[in-house]
């Protein structure tokens, strides 16, 4: 919670004992301001203003004095930025005076900086006034306890603390006046107590002298007159005692028009009748001791929170006010205070917090809670500036209450249960009259009293009495908004009322900002006074936590609670900024889909930036400069970097940044001297206030500072170096920008942060825009490789194409080869779009091969392998297979396992035809046997080996492999692999008939698929969806999109699927037309078995393609389970389709045999959904066999 000069209840946390160096300082204000160090030496406190700063801090110790208040009180006439500088200089020097042994870079322990200002962290005993106040209290207690000798003994040394008038050298400072007056009062009280003690000890003669002396100073104190009378009486000077009474009566009558109090009159009577009791202690002179000192730690601060349990349960309903997320404790406390009203206990309840924090929302909640409890609620607002009349908030409140009361009375009278006009009606009229008096009556005609103070007292008193009467009929809540803008008169009235509210059922709830605005002095005094009153409490409204923001988002129906922490970071938990930001986000994202990146990419709203810039402009210019440099460093500011980058010394940096800490722009990081911007918004507002040139230069300086400092491991600095030099590339740091970005890219790759690596490569290229071709070429290759890893095939190809062009241009064969062979790296699928051959790349590869040094075997292997893959989709596929095979042989000769793995992988892809299944399987086996295989390569090899297991029905083996791949995938974090493994699992779920799981996994796979630019996410997703539906006896509804997809030549694989969908939809004509249009090709590539299966299904239904031809293809492999590619879709053995085809062509016995074989297999594999399909098929064939009329016809 925030503390302030007046309202604060929380003392600063005590520093550890180790923090105290030597004996404590002694602060003395009973005389001129003095500070003595542990040895008793009086310190030089410097010029007057510096002493005034110290005095202000001292009077409020150990609470924070806001920086703005210090400036307002001491430099009201100066522009804030230079005043802040002056103040800061004094603070720095005071700190050196008070703590001479402190190292200049360590933060102060006595004079501390804490938002929103500064504080003296001292113990009460270190202040003479404090010690005196306590002694006075103790003496009073001793006297009251009948120990006058103790009282005298205590007071002797205490009174000796007085060296003169309190704060004599600062007596004309307005801020000191009330303290000086209070201390004078305390002293008078102490002297009175001493005199009383003397009287009790029988030293009446001394008392008469002393009291006469005191009366010279303050003749209107009736208590002193009484004491004098009693002392004279004890001295047997009755006549003088009675004369004293007459003197007092004359004085009061002549000067004030008053009579002596009844007590004094009774005393006179007692003397006249020579009352026995006068011999003893009679009527204590001072019933209540005044405030003992400048400090009152009442100790009942709000932080203790409400009593748990009993209060909480009863008010559960109150806490659930919608839209007030995170304010439950506040609401609970307010509810308790409102409940107290029923017991006749009111008070002043201050709700404090920065603007936008939600004070008004709380006040509104309080108002409705009060209304629920039957309390009268009056709402008033203070107005900024001087546009409103004095007492404005009170006028509003009194008018509201008066009208309210009049209405109530009228109603009561109408229902004839009015308390016979009586008090209530009178109070209503009172209130209205008073409101009128406040608004102008008293201004034009200052009543009959000449003394304005008395007049004010009378006015305040009548308001108090009227409100008390009003509250006696029903509890009252007065809400006063924006108290920081209240006029001085209203504040005085509030403090006047506040004194008695703890016994009146009236609660004033006022909202106030911690940094006072207009008329600060009055506000500060009022708040200070209020805090000392019994019924006052201050509730700090703090920023929301990320959890609370998440709750808020959920509660208010925003669909993105996962953004809570990003939003918290942006807004610092300020509900207002949060609201502004959410408003902005919805306006820029009408579709309602917002990502963390969107939140982070958002420009700071202008209003917020302006607010921050205004705050910054109040700081000294050098502080502003340092803050701007700090903003370039980032949200977290390393002090060493800032020092080195700016060339300012450590102590100076600290001094200059301190005001920023004091006003809450920066916070000090615990356990060091680093800083952090309190809001991301603050840092950004400062940063974007700089021109591009300024930013670039500063980034360069920061980069060099980080370079020079060399803290930590080189690796940890790389991202920062790449970042800063990258942004400084245009102002002469291009070389560093490029080299650090390259290093950072390498580091990111090593840490599997491939996306970051791509960003670093792009950044390096950007910095190198005008650089030499050779460098650009190297960067493009790095970028191409990095993009390839992230699955951005298109981006990789464009970078590598450019690299090849550049490298060819400068005749750098090595670079050409490096760029051209990137796509020969280990991969599961052929990276080219289905059916595409890049003839330029083929030419480049062949050209390099033809010119290659015969000894460069490794390079030859790489080129051949890559070429093999590149030739796959063309007429030269078989040639490509042979190239890949040669590459494998070369690699075997070299004996490098990784090269061998790579070429084997080339071969597996280049040879992906039905004919070479066995060789591919063996190649994958060989890959898996190689030592030191990278994770991704292992996954790829396993996935290549797995289809054969599935086809053979070795599901247990297949599942074990799949499980391992899924595990490994989590370690690899490449979207391409994630996609492929997720789809393999999705295909397996199709086989199992677990449709929901199949759909879930396919969605997962499609998600990562879309993060790549590989061929096929749409077609794969649609085919998969179709078979999920088909397995459940549906699928027709996907017809339109399948037809659409399959129209594309590169989506050949989906054509039979589309025809099947047409049949499912019952549109046989369309099915025929599609076959007319597309034909029924089944290319002998990786899709063959899957495509031919589907055409077989089509043929069994439509008779096209030729069922006999399909049988010729399918019968030899009837025992194989169906699998698409690396398992994206899987189905039972081909027996079923063969049976259907045989049935179609009229070979019932063979059809039955295959159908039974299928059924057996399905039973053996425990695939219930396929078992029932097979059973249905068998029944169908048998039924048809018994009914020859239907034989040969397609099932209905």
């Amino acid at each position, binding site marked *: 919670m925030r503390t302030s000069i007046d309202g604060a209840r929380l003392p600063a946390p005590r520093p550890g004992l180790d923090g105290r160096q030597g004996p404590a300082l002694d602060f003395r204000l009973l005389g001129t301001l003095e500070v003595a160090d542990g040895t008793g030496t009086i310190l030089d406190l410097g*010029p*007057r*203003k510096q002493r005034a700063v110290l005095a202000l801090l001292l009077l409020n110790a150990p609470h924070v004095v806001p920086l703005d208040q210090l400036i307002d009180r001491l430099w009201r006439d100066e522009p804030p930025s230079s005043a802040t500088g002056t103040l*800061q*200089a004094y603070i720095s*020097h005071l700190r050196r005076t008070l703590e001479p042994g402190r190292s200049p870079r360590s933060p102060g322990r006595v004079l501390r900086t804490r938002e929103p200002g500064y504080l003296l962290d001292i113990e009460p005993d270190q202040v003479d006034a404090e010690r005196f106040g306590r002694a006075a209290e103790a003496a009073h207690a001793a006297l009251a306890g009948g120990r006058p000798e103790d009282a005298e003994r205590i007071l002797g040394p205490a009174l000796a603390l007085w060296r003169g008038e309190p704060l004599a050298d600062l007596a004309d400072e307005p801020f000191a006046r009330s303290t000086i007056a209070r201390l004078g009062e305390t002293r008078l009280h102490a002297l009175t107590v001493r005199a009383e003690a003397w009287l009790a000890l029988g030293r009446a003669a001394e008392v008469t002298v002393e009291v006469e002396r005191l009366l010279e100073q303050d003749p209107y104190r009736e208590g002193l007159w009484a004491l004098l009378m009693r002392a004279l009486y004890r001295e047997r000077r009755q006549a003088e005692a009675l004369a004293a009474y007459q003197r007092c009566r004359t004085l009061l009558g002549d000067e004030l028009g008053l009579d002596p109090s009844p007590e004094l009159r009774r005393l006179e009577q007692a003397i006249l009748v020579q009352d026995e009791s006068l011999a003893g202690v009679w009527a204590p002179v001072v019933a209540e001791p005044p405030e003992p000192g400048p400090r009152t730690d009442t100790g009942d601060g709000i932080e203790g929170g409400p009593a748990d349990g009993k209060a909480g349960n009863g008010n559960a309903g109150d806490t659930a006010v919608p839209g007030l997320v995170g304010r439950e404790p506040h609401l609970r406390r307010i509810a308790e205070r409102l409940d107290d009203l029923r017991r006749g206990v009111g008070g002043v309840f201050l709700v404090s917090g920065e603007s936008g924090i939600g004070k008004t929302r709380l006040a509104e909640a309080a108002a409705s809670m009060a209304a629920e409890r039957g309390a009268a609620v009056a709402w008033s607002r203070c107005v900024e500036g001087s546009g409103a009349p004095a007492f404005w908030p009170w006028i509003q409140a009194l008018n509201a209450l008066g009208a309210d009361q009049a209405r109530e009375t009228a109603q009561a009278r109408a229902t004839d249960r009015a308390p016979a006009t009586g008090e209530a009606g009178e109070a209503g009229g009172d209130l209205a009259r008073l409101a009128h008096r406040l608004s102008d009556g008293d201004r034009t005609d200052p009543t009959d009293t000449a003394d304005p103070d008395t007049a004010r007292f009378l006015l305040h008193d009548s308001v108090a009495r009227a409100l008390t009467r009003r509250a006696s009929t029903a509890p009252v809540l007065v809400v006063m908004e924006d108290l920081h803008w209240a006029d001085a008169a209203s504040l005085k009235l509030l403090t006047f009322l506040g004194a008695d509210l703890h016994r009146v059922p009236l609660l004033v709830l006022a909202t106030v900002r911690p940094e006072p605005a207009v008329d600060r002095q009055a506000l500060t005094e009022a708040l200070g006074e209020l805090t000392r009153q019994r019924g006052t409490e201050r509730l700090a409204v703090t920023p929301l936590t990320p959890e609370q923001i998440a709750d808020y988002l959920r509660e208010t129906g925003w669909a993105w609670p996962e953004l809570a922490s990003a939003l918290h970071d942006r807004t610092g938990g300020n509900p207002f900024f949060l609201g502004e930001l959410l408003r902005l986000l919805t306006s820029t994202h009408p579709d309602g889909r917002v990502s963390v990146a969107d939140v982070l990419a958002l420009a700071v709203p202008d209003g917020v930036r302006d607010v921050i810039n205004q705050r910054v402009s109040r700081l*000294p210019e*050098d502080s502003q400069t340092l803050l*701007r440099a700090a903003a370039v460093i980032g949200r977290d500011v390393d002090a060493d970097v800032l020092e080195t980058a700016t060339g300012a010394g450590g102590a100076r940096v600290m001094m200059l940044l301190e005001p920023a800490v004091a006003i809450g722009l920066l916070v000090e990081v615990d356990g060091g001297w680093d800083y952090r911007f309190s809001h991301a918004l603050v840092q950004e507002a400062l940063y974007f206030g700089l021109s591009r040139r300024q930013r670039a*230069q500063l980034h360069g300086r920061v980069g060099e500072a980080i370079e020079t400092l060399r803290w930590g491991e080189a690796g940890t600095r790389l991202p920062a170096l790449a970042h800063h030099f990258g942004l400084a590339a245009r102002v002469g740091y291009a070389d560093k920008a490029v080299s650090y970005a390259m290093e950072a890219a390498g580091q990111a790759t090593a840490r599997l942060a491939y996306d970051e690596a791509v960003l670093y490569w792009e950044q390096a290229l950007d910095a190198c825009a005008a650089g030499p071709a050779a460098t650009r070429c190297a960067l493009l290759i790095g970028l191409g490789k990095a993009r390839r890893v992230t699955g951005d095939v298109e981006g990789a190809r464009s970078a590598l194409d450019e690299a090849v062009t550049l490298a060819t241009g400068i005749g750098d064969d090595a670079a050409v080869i490096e760029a051209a062979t990137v796509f020969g790296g280990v991969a599961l699928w052929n990276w080219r779009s289905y059916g595409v051959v890049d003839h330029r790349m083929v030419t480049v590869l062949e050209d390099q091969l033809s010119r290659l040094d015969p000894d460069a075997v490794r390079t030859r292997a790489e080129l051949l392998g890559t070429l093999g893959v590149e030739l796959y989709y063309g007429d030269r596929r078989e040639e490509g297979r042979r190239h890949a095979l040669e590459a494998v042989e070369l690699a075997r000769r070299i004996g490098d396992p990784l090269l061998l793995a790579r070429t084997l992988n080339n071969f597996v892809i280049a040879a992906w035809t039905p004919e070479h299944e066995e060789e591919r399987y063996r190649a994958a086996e060989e890959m898996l046997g190689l030592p030191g295989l990278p994770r991704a390569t292992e996954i790829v090899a396993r996935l290549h080996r797995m289809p054969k297991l599935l086809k053979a029905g070795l599901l247990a083996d297949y599942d074990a492999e799949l499980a391992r791949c899924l595990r490994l995938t989590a370690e690899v974090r490449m979207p391409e692999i994630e996609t492929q493994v997720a789809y393999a699992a999705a295909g397996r779920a199709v086989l199992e008939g677990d449709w929901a799981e199949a759909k879930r996994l396919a969605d997962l796979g499609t998600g990562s698929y879309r993060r790549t630019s590989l061929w096929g996410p749409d077609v794969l997703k649609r085919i998969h969806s179709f078979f999920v539906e088909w397995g459940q006896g549906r699928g027709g509804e996907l017809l339109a999109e399948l037809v659409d997809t399959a129209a594309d030549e590169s989506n050949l694989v989906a054509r039979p699927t589309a025809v099947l969908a047409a049949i499912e939809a019952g549109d046989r004509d369309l099915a025929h037309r599609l076959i007319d249009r597309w034909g029924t090709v089944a290319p002998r590539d990786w899709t063959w078995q899957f495509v031919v299966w589907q055409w077989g299904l089509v043929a069994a239904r439509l008779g096209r393609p030729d069922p006999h031809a399909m049988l010729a293809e399918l019968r030899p492999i009837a025992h194989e389970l169906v699998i698409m590619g690396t398992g994206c879709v899987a189905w039972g053995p081909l027996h079923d389709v063969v049976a259907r085809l045989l049935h179609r062509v009229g070979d019932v016995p063979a059809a039955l045999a295959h159908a039974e074989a299928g059924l057996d297999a399905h039973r053996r594999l425990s695939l219930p959904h396929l078992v029932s399909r097979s059973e249905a098929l068998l029944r169908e064939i048998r039924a048809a066999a018994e009914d020859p009329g239907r034989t040969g016809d397609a099932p209905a």
Partner: protein
Amino acid sequence: MSSPSNKRRPRYAAPSGTLLLREVPAHTGAPGARIIGPALERVLRETPAARCRLYVLTDLARPVAAAPLAAALLETGAPRHVPRWALLHTLAVAVPHHGRGLGHRLLDDLLMELRADGVRAVWFLPGPGDDGLRNLLESAGFRDGTDRGLSPENERTYGYDEPEIRPWAAWLFREL
């Protein structure tokens, strides 16, 4: 500050300033030496280096090697003690940057620095060509040193080890 404060002054040029005052070791090759001119060499010859202070106003948004925009040379009381006074030997703005209010800016920062060091008074002895600087200082609250400046209460409370300055009349003086 008990002396009159400097109120209205021209605003500095840049909207988001990146100017920063820095203290640099005083030697003839120091940055800012060219702005100070021959005075630097003279002062260094006559004064112990430990008592010389050279301040430069730099722009963080200019290359690191760029020359400062303005500089000031001072002499203070004995090192290792709280210096109670400072002598301003010279304060100058580099020619290309005249007219931007940089003299004010430098002086402002300088006074804050000195104040934070506990310096109570700054003195300056104007020479024949120092009219511009004299105007600047006077607008910043420097006054004629004839009345020996120190306000009674400072005089009363604390003794000063004032520099050997005679005659008083010619000096400009500012309490901090």
